[in-house]
């Protein structure tokens, strides 16, 4: 795997958790949404934290789509699970939160899962690639 591909997957892992944290903060400011007024969720989009969250999640989404263009879904998803590990480390190092033994165990499981999938092939199921190749040939004609 090239450095570019590593960086693409790293971007998903960095921007995703940051976006989620911004969204959570924004929704706490907005307050609970009543079941009979579900459309009020659209008003939340004006909240600055929600806007920042959406921007960060868009960056993560663009990286995610780029990753999917060269790797399988069942490779990209476990590989980008390192975002959860990032979130716990940020909470520990910046916010001083305590990490219990069970939480360290969770981190270990995620790292093992990521390591497992990362040693496998990036791309399988080539019959669908053939579909794209034939579509591109038709376009170029």
């Amino acid at each position, binding site marked *: 795997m090239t450095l570019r591909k590593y960086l693409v997957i790293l971007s998903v892992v960095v921007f995703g958790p940051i976006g989620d944290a911004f969204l959570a903060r924004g929704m706490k400011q907005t307050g*609970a949404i009543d079941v009979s007024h579900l459309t009020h969720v659209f008003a939340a989009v004006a909240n600055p934290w929600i806007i920042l969250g959406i921007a960060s999640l868009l960056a993560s989404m663009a990286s995610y789509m780029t990753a999917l263009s060269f790797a399988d879904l069942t490779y990209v998803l476990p590989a980008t699970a390192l975002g959860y590990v990032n979130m716990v480390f940020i909470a520990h190092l910046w916010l001083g939160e305590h990490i219990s033994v069970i939480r360290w165990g*969770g981190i270990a*499981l995620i790292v093992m899962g990521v390591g*497992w999938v990362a040693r496998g092939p990036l791309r399988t199921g080539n019959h669908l690639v053939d579909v794209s190749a034939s579509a591109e040939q038709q376009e170029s004609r």
Partner: protein
Amino acid sequence: MRLAYTWVCILVTVVAAAGGDVLIALAMRRIGDLGELGARLGIFAVVVRIFSSGAFLSGISLMAIAFFSNLIGLSWADLSLMGPATASLTFLANALGGKLFLGEDVDRRRWLATIFVCAGVLLIARS
């Protein structure tokens, strides 16, 4: 009752997110490596190609449903419940979707990776 609504939101989020992921993965697979295409055709042509893909637009629509369902859920429950519950269940749904709809070779290594990541996310959330 709010907990029941939260779990409905989690279920809608998981189904919509997994469906969206599978459709977007299908679109990206058909379009080809975005980095190489961008270098060859330019970014604008790549963006046009992405946004003219029916699979991509359907996937984004499902993602939008998942996004708003998640937002509504976050207004009722903590991120520490919504985040891990939706993420861990979406991992499993995506592994099934990748195998059934994308023809990916989800071998023992990938199932184990998916299960380990799911278990890890649940442990982080519940401790």
